[in-house]
């Protein structure tokens, strides 16, 4: 948007330089990805997340693993500020997304959430048609032109491989799709807001193996363009698709590192026990 404005204002040459500047700037920022400093989360005076310090590498898949109740989902929710909806949650610390602290005072929560595409545990289509589900995001962010909306919807339905399955019934209710299709629809819906990050909260735990496989393949395809952070229950899934693993236990990060290193050569005793199945 800004670029085209400048293009009109000054000459082509100037705008070209601006464009280059913008691209390098964007790259610089993008390499920062997500950085978390001294994050603590309390829910009704219970200390859920303890002193999290972390950098999440960009354009890759980071899987967060750990036993139930260790704070994985709570952590994920701090990234798109969904805790804002629950007044009983208190958060301290800093979360830098693209070098900006999203808990800073001047930050607009809507801008933050627009950067994060969320894929929930159970697919949850909105009470509208398949088409409108995908069109929902672009529309709430102000895209009104029918042609642009149509194009976006088709593009993302194709991207998740749903278009051919639903093209003759995009105007029917989304709840009539199978649960695996619904989850792909939710992914398309999340992508349609054009996020930079994708957050998945056990996004395949409700799906059958075949649908799980499809979603996993999509994640692998998506990591070329997006930074993906997944909470997962299954170690095998983490092994299959993750580039980096974060292991959490009782609200703390126990160990984090590249997948291969993590599984083949865990450094902490607790990690070894978890991987060997001593507790879950």
């Amino acid at each position, binding site marked *: 948007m800004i670029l085209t404005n400048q293009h009109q204002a000054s000459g082509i040459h100037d705008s070209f330089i601006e464009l280059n500047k913008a691209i390098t700037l964007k790259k610089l920022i993008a390499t920062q990805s997500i950085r978390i400093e001294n994050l603590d989360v309390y829910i009704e005076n219970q200390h859920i997340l303890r002193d999290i310090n972390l950098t999440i590498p960009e354009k890759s898949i980071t899987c967060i693993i750990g036993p139930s109740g260790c704070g994985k989902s709570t952590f994920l929710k701090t990234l798109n500020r969904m805790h804002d909806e629950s007044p009983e949650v208190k958060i301290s610390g800093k979360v830098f997304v693209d070098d900006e602290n999203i808990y800073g005072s001047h930050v607009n929560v809507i801008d933050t959430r627009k950067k994060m595409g969320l894929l929930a545990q159970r697919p*949850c289509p909105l009470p509208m048609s398949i088409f409108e589900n995908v069109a*929902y995001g672009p529309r709430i962010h102000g895209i009104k032109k029918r042609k642009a909306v149509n194009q976006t919807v088709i593009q993302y339905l194709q991207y998740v491989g749903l278009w051919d399955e639903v093209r003759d019934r995009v105007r029917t209710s989304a709840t009539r799709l199978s649960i695996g299709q619904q989850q792909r629809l939710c992914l398309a819906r999340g992508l349609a807001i054009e996020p930079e990050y994708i957050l998945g909260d056990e996004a395949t735990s409700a799906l059958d193996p075949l649908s799980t496989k499809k979603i996993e393949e999509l994640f692998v395809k998506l990591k070329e363009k997006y930074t993906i952070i997944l909470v997962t229950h299954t170690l095998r899934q983490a092994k299959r698709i993750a580039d980096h693993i974060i292991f959490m236990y009782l609200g703390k990060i126990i160990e984090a590192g590249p997948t291969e290193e993590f599984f083949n050569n865990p450094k902490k005793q607790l990690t070894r026990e978890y991987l060997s199945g001593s507790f879950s």
Partner: protein
Amino acid sequence: MRRLRAVKDKTVRYFMLGIAIFTILLLIVIGLSLFFKALPIMKEKNLWVLLTSADWKPFKGDFGFLPFILSTFYVSFIAIIIALPFSILTSIYLNSYASKNVRRFFEPVVDLLSGIPPVIYGVWGTLTIVPLIADKIAPGFVEFSTGYTVLAGGVVLAVMIIPLLISIMLEVFRSIPKEMTDASLAMGATKWQTVKKVILRRSVSGIIAATVLALSRAFGETMAVLMVCGNIAQIPHSIFDACYPLPALIANNYGEMLSMPSYESALMFSAFLLFIIVVLFNGLSRFTLNQIERRYQF
């Protein structure tokens, strides 16, 4: 021992079936007894005339129910038109915006409001709404009004059904899974966008059902309406005219008319009419609800 348990299980089952059938029978029995009591007047007069005539002179033998039927509908619809926006907005606020403490304060108050006896609403209406209409509102529109009007009935009735509507709608909104609103919020929708496009859309059938229930209640409400709507057997031409709904007609005259068999039968006819209106209305709305749900299976 095992047999005894099986016998007990069966006994309980059939006992409860019996009770359930009894409840349904009650409805049929009430309907039938009203029908037979109303039969004389229906035989004496043409049914069409009874329903469409506006002449109400019981002592001359003229029984036209149109004024009462229209009054019932007018008062109820005014009530629902006033009550719906109030209760939808209130329940949205309580459900999506209010803090826990506000909710904790409001919800018992709403329940309390629906527990206040109708006669108190009636007295309150007579003391405040009626003079307000007579002195302040009506003079702006018509030359003279006593204040005992269709509007007064509608307002008092609205105040009475608002708590009912709010508590049903809160239930409807609460049945929406949190994941759904979260999904919308997580995409960067504002609260208001989420309310408009997800919560309200998902609740359409629930809101319709609540409206129907409130309307049925409004059709039958007697005491409070009777106290403020003037009770003159005429077709009201504006909301500043007096009116005379069916329940008020029955309550005011039953007991006085025992000397005149046709009058008694006429009152029974009006009771039967009210019964049919409510039953038909409920049936019709159930049918439309089914249609809506089938078409938009959300």
